[in-house]
């Protein structure tokens, strides 16, 4: 082992602190060589080791009656009956997507799909949660355009439908967009495959794309802030090949049907290094490979480069000794070359050879379980006290309700995302029961009577104003969306997007958000089976809004009883379950009208939220509820409008004035307040009494507020009409707002 001199500059380039280096030396009992330092640096990076977040993540609820696989594997899994499991996870690809939007987003999709099929599951649905800066900024439009086509380019080609998601806009994401991708697959519950290496002498196989120099130190990059050296980081973004992944997906699922496989893991972040050491560590075994045998795309690659490359679409398999030919035949059928690069050993070490000479040797545990774990200091942020103060009177009288209504409909956060989702194939596999934009994403599980509802959500403004409550509201919103469709929430996965954890104020946001998320999941009975943390989401020292995204999966027992957001029939009764309070803090109203993020987020009573979700699930199952749509950004006024869109129907509703609001804000608050735990449902008149009784039995306020019909949206407050708009006109504003930003650009070009 020849060793280059390792000095402070080399350590800094690897993102390894002097203390961490000393620890490496004591673990090895010697100085590492450069290859070993590289291996440690990626495995101990924030991205792979969760060193800042682990102490907090441990507090999340991860167990439950249906949980088949919690955190620690490639993805989590929950029991959905009939011997089947839903395997799902969400992951971020924020940093690469800013540097190279198309490839960054595309490879994010590729990565999460591999996590799902390595578990032995057939992926059937993709969702995504995206954040961008203001659309007025041409660079933001370019980023968003690239991200959207990258997501489509990958998912469409591989044939997994992108069935839903959410998009938010705020200036803080301009230099650091968020691209969180969720994937769900179906596996036989007793055939879930693990990422483990065991059985001395079993063969270690490499299959998929060749290894190139792309993505070296991708994991380290994702663990550092952006600054003006950004352009130099371009080579650290990988390039995706969805066709190769399609071959891998089909071939791996075919190999898994044999029992020749011990374990499998994809080479995502930290590539060959991560897959070998994690598989060895999980199986309590050692792994020995020779990098000279690894198929290479470029000449003259060093062991260091081969071990750290993040070239996409590569898998590592451990195959039973003696069954190699069988596995090779399957890969041959798919024109893939499976290469035998090493063996499982008994010594618990990762041993890397190059043409037979050892170039690195590290105990697997040192790279995984024994990676550093920090309890980083936390401080309440200085901005908080001022930001939480909101004096609406000081902002002057609000614009007329009709004007606010129209401006909110055109706000990108509320407006239709059709321009985006029509670039995604959302129907392939013919399971999509609710089209994008029509409520939670719902796919049926063929060969069973069931369906799965999914929703990814987070309001970063709420999390900024109070990370604890904000994270709780995210859990409540995602599970409420799933419940609106008729799904009983049975599991969740989280993607925690925050700034630099070395700043105590950011770490405080993170810690409080995890606490809030855990409390909400416990109260609602939703275990978190895995997820991802993305830190250092900062550009030039300025962080994004704290964005703890949660993806919730719900089980619908009867796939013929799926409920969407849209009204169904003229004459149906419109009921509000829940109540509106004077809660304008962090609202879309403040954002759009006053360009401010202020106040405190709406309060959340978790017991009431749980009761509300029970009403929704029971009401859907009995067939009483014909449509259900929750009240979030833009309040009940926007909810009622959205219930009319994509239908030929209008609505007439009378809302109660909100107590506590300043006199001039009485109507504004009734229409646009964002109080939690509220849902607008429609029922046939004959079902009204049953619905009200169901709500009352659960201790929930519920009351008829109007009726479906006509061609206008007519809203009154305490009997005084304040909004009267043709549905077609409101829908035009809502449907074209985002599109017009991009078509306008096209017209100039």
């Amino acid at each position, binding site marked *: 082992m020849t060793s280059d001199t390792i000095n402070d500059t080399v350590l800094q380039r690897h993102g390894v602190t002097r203390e961490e280096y000393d620890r490496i030396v004591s673990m090895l009992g010697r100085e590492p060589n450069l290859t070993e330092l590289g291996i440690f640096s990626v495995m101990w990076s924030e991205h792979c080791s969760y060193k800042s977040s682990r102490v907090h993540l441990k507090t999340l609820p991860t167990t439950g009656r249906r949980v088949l696989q919690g955190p620690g594997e490639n993805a989590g899994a929950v029991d959905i009956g009939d011997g089947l499991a839903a395997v799902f996870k969400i992951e971020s690809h924020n940093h690469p997507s800013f540097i190279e939007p198309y490839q960054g987003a595309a490879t994010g999709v590729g990565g999460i799909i591999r996590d799902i099929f390595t578990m032995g599951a057939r992926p059937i649905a993709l969702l995504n949660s995206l954040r961008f800066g203001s659309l007025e900024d041409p660079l933001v439009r370019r980023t968003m355009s690239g991200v959207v086509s990258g997501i489509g380019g990958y998912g*469409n080609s591989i*044939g997994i439908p992108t069935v839903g998601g959410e998009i938010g806009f705020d200036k803080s994401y301009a230099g650091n967009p968020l691209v969180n991708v969720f994937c769900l697959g179906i596996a036989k519950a007793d055939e879930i495959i693990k990422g483990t290496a065991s059985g001395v002498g079993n063969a270690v196989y490499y299959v998929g794309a060749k290894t190139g120099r792309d993505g070296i130190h991708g994991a380290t990059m994702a663990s550092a802030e952006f600054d003006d050296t950004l352009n130099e980081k371009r080579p650290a973004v990988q390039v995706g090949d969805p*066709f190769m992944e*399609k*071959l891998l997906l089909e071939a791996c699922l075919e190999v898994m049907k044999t029992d020749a496989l011990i374990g499998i893991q994809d080479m995502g972040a930290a590539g060959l290094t991560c897959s070998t050491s994690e598989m060895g560590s999980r199986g309590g075994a050692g792994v020995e490979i020779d990098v000279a045998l690894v198929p290479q795309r470029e000449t003259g690659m060093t062991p260091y480069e081969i071990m750290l490359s993040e070239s996409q679409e590569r898998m590592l398999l451990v195959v039973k000794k003696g069954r190699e030919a069988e596995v090779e035949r399957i890969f041959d059928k798919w024109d893939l070359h499976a290469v035998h690069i090493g063996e499982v050993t008994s010594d618990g070490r990762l041993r890397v050879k190059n043409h037979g000479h050892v170039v690195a040797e590290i105990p697997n545990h040192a790279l995984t379980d024994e990676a550093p774990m920090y309890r980083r200091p936390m401080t309440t942020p200085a901005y908080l006290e001022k930001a939480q103060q909101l004096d609406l009177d000081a902002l002057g009288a609000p614009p007329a309700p009709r004007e606010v209504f129209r401006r909110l409909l055109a706000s990108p956060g509320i407006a239709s995302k059709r321009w985006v989702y029509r*670039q995604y*194939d959302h*129907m392939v596999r*013919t399971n999509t*029961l609710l089209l994008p934009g029509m409520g939670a994403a719902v796919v049926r599980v063929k060969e069973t009577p069931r369906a799965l509802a999914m929703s990814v959500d987070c309001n970063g403004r709420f999390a900024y104003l109070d990370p604890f409550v904000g994270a709780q509201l995210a859990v409540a919103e995602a599970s409420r969306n799933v419940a609106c469709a008729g799904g009983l929430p049975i599991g969740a996965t989280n993607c925690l997007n925050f700034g630099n954890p070395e700043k105590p104020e950011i770490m405080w946001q993170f810690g409080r958000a995890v606490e809030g998320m855990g409390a909400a999941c416990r109260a609602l009975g939703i275990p978190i089976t895995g997820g991802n943390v993305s830190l250092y989401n900062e550009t030039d020292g300025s962080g994004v809004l704290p964005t703890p995204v949660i993806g919730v999966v719900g089980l619908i027992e009867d796939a013929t009883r799926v409920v969407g957001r849209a009204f169904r029939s003229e004459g149906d009764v419109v009921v509000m379950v829940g109540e509106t309070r004077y809660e304008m803090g962090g609202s879309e109203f403040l954002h759009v009208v006053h360009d401010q993020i202020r106040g405190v987020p709406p309060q959340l009573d978790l017991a009431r939220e749980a009761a509300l979700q029970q009403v929704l699930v029971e009401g859907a199952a009995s067939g009483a509820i014909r449509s259900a749509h929750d009240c979030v950004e833009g309040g009940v006024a926007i909810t009622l409008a959205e219930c009319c869109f994509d239908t030929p129907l209008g609505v007439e509703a009378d809302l109660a004035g909100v107590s506590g609001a300043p006199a001039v804000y009485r109507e504004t608050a009734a229409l646009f307040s964002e109080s939690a735990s509220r849902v607008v449902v429609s029922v046939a008149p004959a079902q009204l009494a049953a619905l009200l009784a169901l709500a009352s039995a659960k201790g929930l306020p519920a009351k008829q507020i109007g009726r479906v019909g006509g061609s206008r949206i007519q809203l009154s407050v305490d009997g005084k009409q304040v909004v009267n708009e043709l549905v077609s006109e409101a829908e035009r504003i809502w449907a074209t707002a985002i599109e017009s930003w991009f078509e306008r650009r096209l017209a100039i070009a």
Partner: protein
Amino acid sequence: MKIAVVVFPGSNCDHDTYYVAKDVLGQDAELIWHKDTSLRRADAVILPGGFAHGDYLRTGAIARFSPIMPEVAKFAAAGGPVLGICNGFQVLLEAGLLPGAMLRNRRLQFRCEFLHVRVEQTATPFTLACRSGQSIKVPIAHGEGNYYAEPDVVQRLEQNRQVVFRYVSSSGEMTEDSNPNGSVNNIAGICNEARNVVGLMPHPERACELAIGSDDGLVVFQSLLKWSRESLLEGNLATTTSEHQTVVNR
């Protein structure tokens, strides 16, 4: 009847098509790997949607060289019904079984949505059960569906009544707005001169159950069943099938 669905390595609507043939229509169906050299006595062949070989070059440009394609060509030459859906249509164009080519969509974006197409011709095995001028609600999902052919070719297609489907508005009008990709003359699907080979960009297999938004696409498959029954009566099917077998067994 027995329906063969060809599986290229990047096909991704193969199972959806198979599902409709087998589970929705209750027919005999078989997935045929693109490296196979026999269509296994199928009565009809469907090339499904997807990205046959990733389509980084030109959609379907590599698929036409797959070992199964000469068999598909022989089957078509013998009068057997062949349907190409989306990528399958693109493969048929590249293989020369249908005239013309595909350009990228006018807006250079992939587009997936329900829309309406009008059945222009009922004298094909895949539209036999339609009413002439019937408008059906089916989805599209493609990035390269902008059908193009030289003006004289288009003229010949129109004269020979080979334009089978056209994009129309929900009220059945052929308008600029209802054309999702810029296809010449709003062409969504065509047939060959012998009328037994049909290609279309929309996905009828995704519109065979109301639960997923529409069952208007069923009529395409029901047409095939009707054609099969009528051919049996006339003895046509037996002829094509036996001719085909001779070819395969040779």
